[in-house]
């Protein structure tokens, strides 16, 4: 399988381990990631908070590139980028007048033909391959799948899973041999956008998530969004009471990578703030 790859800005910076682990997993599962040549930023929150047309044109430029480079599907592992690309695609498809305006500012051929996939979606499709190649290294590992806000909402745009009772991340976790726990905060926003600006809000929201996951018996959180990750990993120390044990936060691709027996350093586990290497070590011990 071959797919266009839109890493997005964060995968070259704060979310390097997502990029690294995804590339490692893809290569192990014969998924060919073809990075879009000359891709640009999707505009993120700043785009759609200030100039609506720009918030569509920036993603559209990348979709047009993908089209020109012969792709019919693009993987955007960052949930925020994914949301922006998918929203742009949806809005442009629904409104011919808007499509014309976007075409006018793009000044390049754009048929809006490329579909956008997210990390969970693609890994779920690879589920059988993951199961086939995963060892039993993650057996018994209990994890809480955290969807956050951008992966499943709004349903009209995203539509790959039920917006209120999604199952796709759990499917992937099971395919990798780990055990998803049943918990309640899977879809509550962690406040990632305010990670630094409103620490109090973020601590309140993050705490509720970590608490619930811990109460459900999870040994780690699994995420598919660089914003969630940086918030819950990088900011976690502020969310803990004195003496509380931190909860490692893994990218879904890292978890799959561990299941496939890929070395923790290749997956970028050393880049985490909450040390995830003990988990990896445990997994490795199970293998041997």
């Amino acid at each position: 399988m071959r797919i266009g790859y839109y890493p997005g800005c964060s995968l070259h910076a704060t979310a390097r381990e997502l990029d690294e682990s995804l590339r490692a997993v893809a290569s192990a599962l014969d998924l060919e990631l073809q990075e879009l040549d000359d891709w640009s930023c999707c505009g993120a929150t700043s785009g759609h908070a200030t100039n609506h047309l720009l918030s569509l044109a920036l993603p559209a430029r990348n979709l047009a590139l993908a089209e020109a480079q012969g792709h019919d599907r693009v993987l955007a592992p960052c949930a925020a980028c994914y949301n922006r690309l998918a929203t742009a695609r949806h809005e442009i498809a629904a409104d011919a007048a808007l499509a014309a305006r976007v075409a006018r500012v793009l000044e390049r051929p754009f048929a809006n033909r490329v579909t956008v996939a997210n990390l969970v979606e693609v890994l779920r499709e690879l589920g059988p391959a993951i199961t086939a190649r995963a060892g039993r290294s993650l057996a018994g590992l209990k994890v809480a799948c955290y969807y956050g806000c951008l992966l499943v909402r709004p349903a009209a745009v995203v539509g790959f899973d039920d917006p209120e009772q999604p199952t796709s991340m759990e499917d992937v976790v099971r395919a990798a041999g780990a055990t998803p726990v049943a918990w309640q905060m899977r879809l509550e926003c962690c406040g990632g956008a305010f990670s630094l600006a409103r620490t109090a809000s973020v601590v309140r929201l993050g705490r509720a998530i970590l608490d619930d996951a811990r109460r459900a018996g999870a040994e780690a959180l699994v995420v598919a969004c660089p914003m969630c990750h940086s918030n819950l990993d990088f900011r976690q120390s502020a969310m803990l009471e004195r003496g509380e044990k931190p909860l490692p936060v893994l990218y879904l691709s890292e978890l799959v990578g561990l299941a496939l027996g890929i070395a923790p350093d290749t997956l970028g586990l050393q880049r985490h703030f909450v040390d995830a290497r003990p988990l990896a070590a445990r997994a490795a011990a199970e293998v041997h």
Partner: protein
Amino acid sequence: MSAPPSEAGSHHPPTLTAHLRATTGVNVAACYQCGKCSAGCPMAVETALRPHDVMRLAASEQRERLLAAESLWLCLTCEACTARCPNGCDPARVIDALREEAAHQAPRAIGAFHRSFLDQIRAFGRSFELGLVMTYKLRSGKLTQDVTTAPGLLGRGKLKLVPHPIAGVSDVRRIFRACEKEEA
């Protein structure tokens, strides 16, 4: 639908309701104030105006009060409100549109943040560090906050210090100019 010929030429300043309908497609009059949006809003305990309040004030043409509201900037855009609105009203989109409007009307710190983020894209085609540390500082003006964490990020290879423009940066700049012209 075009208006009948007799009405052509008459011009009234658009109401906020009409403006929102034109820019977002959302008919704020369709909001029947059930509160399901606010019931699921993660920021409802912190903000003065909850999503259904925003819809209500918009429907009653309270433009000034809305555009001045701090609450607009406390929306996380998590879309829980939109996902659950029984009448398809999309409060998240309305809040976005109001922020866009507010940024136009009164440049404020938060607008400055978005502008600096966008300036990066304009300069390099990409943001070079997810707008995390530096941009938040620009936005908050708290230049010394989180100084301790920057080395942490650096040490983990998570910050790029030297940005490089992408090859098509001039194309991106052109799109910026075109969009600003179109939206003006």
